C-alpha cells in the first residue's frame, strides 16, 4: 500500500507548475483522483507530492462562447459537463461520453483532464474529443502550449507531458450549422465498465451530403486514434447506409487491437466497424435536427 507524502492545494496555475517542477518527477497533478488515488494506493505509481488542481478557479470553469468555441477546465467533474445544456446543444457527443464515464459517484469527481492524462487506450473521452477537433492546453515551466488531442497520447498510459507540465483546459472549436456528434462504446453490461471499443464521430452536412467528418476510435490500438481514412470515406458522399459502411470498413482497417479479458482482437475489429457505423448514424441524425 503506497501513499503520497505531501498534499498541496495551490490557487493558481503558476503555483501548481512550480510545485510540480520542484518535485523532480515525484509530483503528480490531482483532479478527481479516481485513477491516481488508486494507482498510488495499489503501488502502481510512486508519488511523493499530489498537487490538487481543484482550487484553481479556471481548472473547474466551463466557458461556452458561441463564436469562439468552448473551454472546459481540465479538472471539471463529468457531471457538470453532462448537465450543461449549452454543451449538450453544441457538442452532444462529448456529453454522451461524460455521461457514461463511471457511475454517479465517479461522475462527481472524474474529469476530462484526468481521463486524458491517465492515457488509457480505452479512455471514453478521447475518441470524441479527437472527433470534435479538441485541443489540450498545457501549462508548464516554460509557458503554455496547445496540442490537438490526437497528438497527446504516445502509448498505453503514456503521453507527451514533461515534468512540471499540467493539462489546464480542453478547448473545442465553435459549433457550425448542420453539424452533429456522437460517442458510442461497446461494453458487456449496461453501465460502469471499460470500453471494449469506443467510437467518436463528428460530421457536418450540406443538404443530405456529408461535407466534412472526423472519426476517433478507442481501445483498438496502443493509443486512441484519429481515423483519417474513415473521415475521407464520408466527406463529399451522400448520407446513406452505403457511405456509412465504407467508413465502417475504414475503421475496421485502422483497428490494430490486442486480445485481453475484455475481448479478442477479432471481436474488437468487428466491433470497430459496428460501433463506428452506429455513431455515424446518430451524429448524422443530430446534424439533421440541429437548429442552425
Amino acid at each position, binding site marked *: 500500500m503506497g501513499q503520497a507524502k505531501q498534499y498541496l492545494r495551490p490557487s493558481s496555475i503558476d503555483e501548481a507548475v512550480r510545485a510540480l517542477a520542484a518535485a523532480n518527477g515525484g509530483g503528480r497533478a490531482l483532479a478527481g*483522483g479516481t485513477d491516481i488515488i488508486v494507482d498510488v494506493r495499489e503501488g502502481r505509481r510512486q508519488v511523493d507530492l499530489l498537487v490538487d488542481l481543484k482550487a484553481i478557479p479556471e481548472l473547474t470553469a466551463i466557458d461556452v462562447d458561441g463564436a469562439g468555441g468552448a473551454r472546459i477546465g481540465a479538472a471539471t467533474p463529468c457531471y457538470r459537463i453532462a448537465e450543461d445544456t449549452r454543451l449538450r446543444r453544441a457538442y452532444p457527443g462529448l456529453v454522451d461520453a461524460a455521461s457514461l464515464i463511471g457511475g454517479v459517484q*465517479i461522475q*462527481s469527481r472524474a474529469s476530462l483532464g484526468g481521463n486524458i492524462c491517465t492515457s488509457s487506450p480505452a479512455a471514453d473521452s478521447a475518441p470524441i474529443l479527437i472527433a470534435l477537433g479538441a485541443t489540450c492546453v498545457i501549462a508548464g515551466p516554460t509557458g503554455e502550449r496547445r496540442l490537438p488531442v490526437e497528438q497527446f497520447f504516445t502509448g498505453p498510459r503514456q503521453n507527451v507531458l514533461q515534468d512540471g507540465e499540467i493539462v489546464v483546459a480542453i478547448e473545442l472549436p465553435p459549433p457550425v450549422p448542420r453539424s452533429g456528434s456522437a460517442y458510442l462504446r461497446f461494453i458487456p453490461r449496461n453501465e460502469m465498465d471499460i470500453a471494449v471499443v469506443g467510437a467518436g464521430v463528428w460530421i457536418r452536412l450540406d443538404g443530405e451530403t456529408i461535407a466534412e467528418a472526423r472519426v476517433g476510435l478507442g481501445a483498438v490500438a496502443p493509443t486512441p486514434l484519429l481515423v483519417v481514412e474513415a473521415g475521407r470515406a464520408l466527406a463529399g458522399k451522400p448520407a446513406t447506409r452505403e457511405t456509412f459502411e465504407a467508413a465502417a470498413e475504414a475503421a475496421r482497417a485502422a483497428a490494430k487491437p490486442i486480445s485481453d479479458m475484455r475481448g479478442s482482437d477479432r471481436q474488437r475489429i468487428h466491433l470497430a466497424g459496428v460501433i463506428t457505423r452506429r455513431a455515424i448514424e446518430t451524429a448524422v441524425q443530430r446534424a439533421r435536427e440541429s437548429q442552425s
Partner: protein
Amino acid sequence: MTKRVHVETRINGREVDFLCEPGQSLLEVLRDQLHLTGAKEGCNNGNCGACTVILDGRIVDSCLVLAPEVEGREVTTIEGLAGPEHLHPLQQQFLEHAALQCGICTPGLIMAAKGLLDQNPAPTEEEIRLWLAGNLCRCTGYDKIIRAVQAAAQQMEARV
C-alpha cells in the same frame, strides 16, 4: 518523513477537525480516526460504492477522496441520517422490505439513494437502477433494494 495535515470540516452538521496523513483517504479517516464506521471498505478502488458518502450535495466514493480535500466542506455519512426519534425513511424502508442480507453494501446504497431522492423525489424504476449502478450488492439481487427506494420516495412525498 510526511508532515500531517490539519483539516477542518463539517461532518453530519457538526464542526470537526482532525490530523491526517497527506495521502490518507476520507474513508480511512472516517472509520479509523473519527470512529464513523458506517461507511464500509469494500473494493477500495471505486467499483463497489460501499463507502459512498455525500460531499457538498454530491455522492462520492470516500475511498477515492483524500482526507485533506474535505477542508472547509460538508460531509454527510450514514450516521447523519436518522433523527433522535426516527430512522430516515430510506433506513425504515430498507428494513421493511428486507433490502439487505449481509449488510455491507447497505450504508453505501442508502447514501446513494439519498443523493438521488434529494434531487429527484419521484424517480422511475429505471432511474433508480441506473443511479445505483455504482453500488454493488452480492446478496439481494437488487429488486428489494429498488422496492425500498420506491417506498421511501413515496413516504417522503406523503410527508411534505
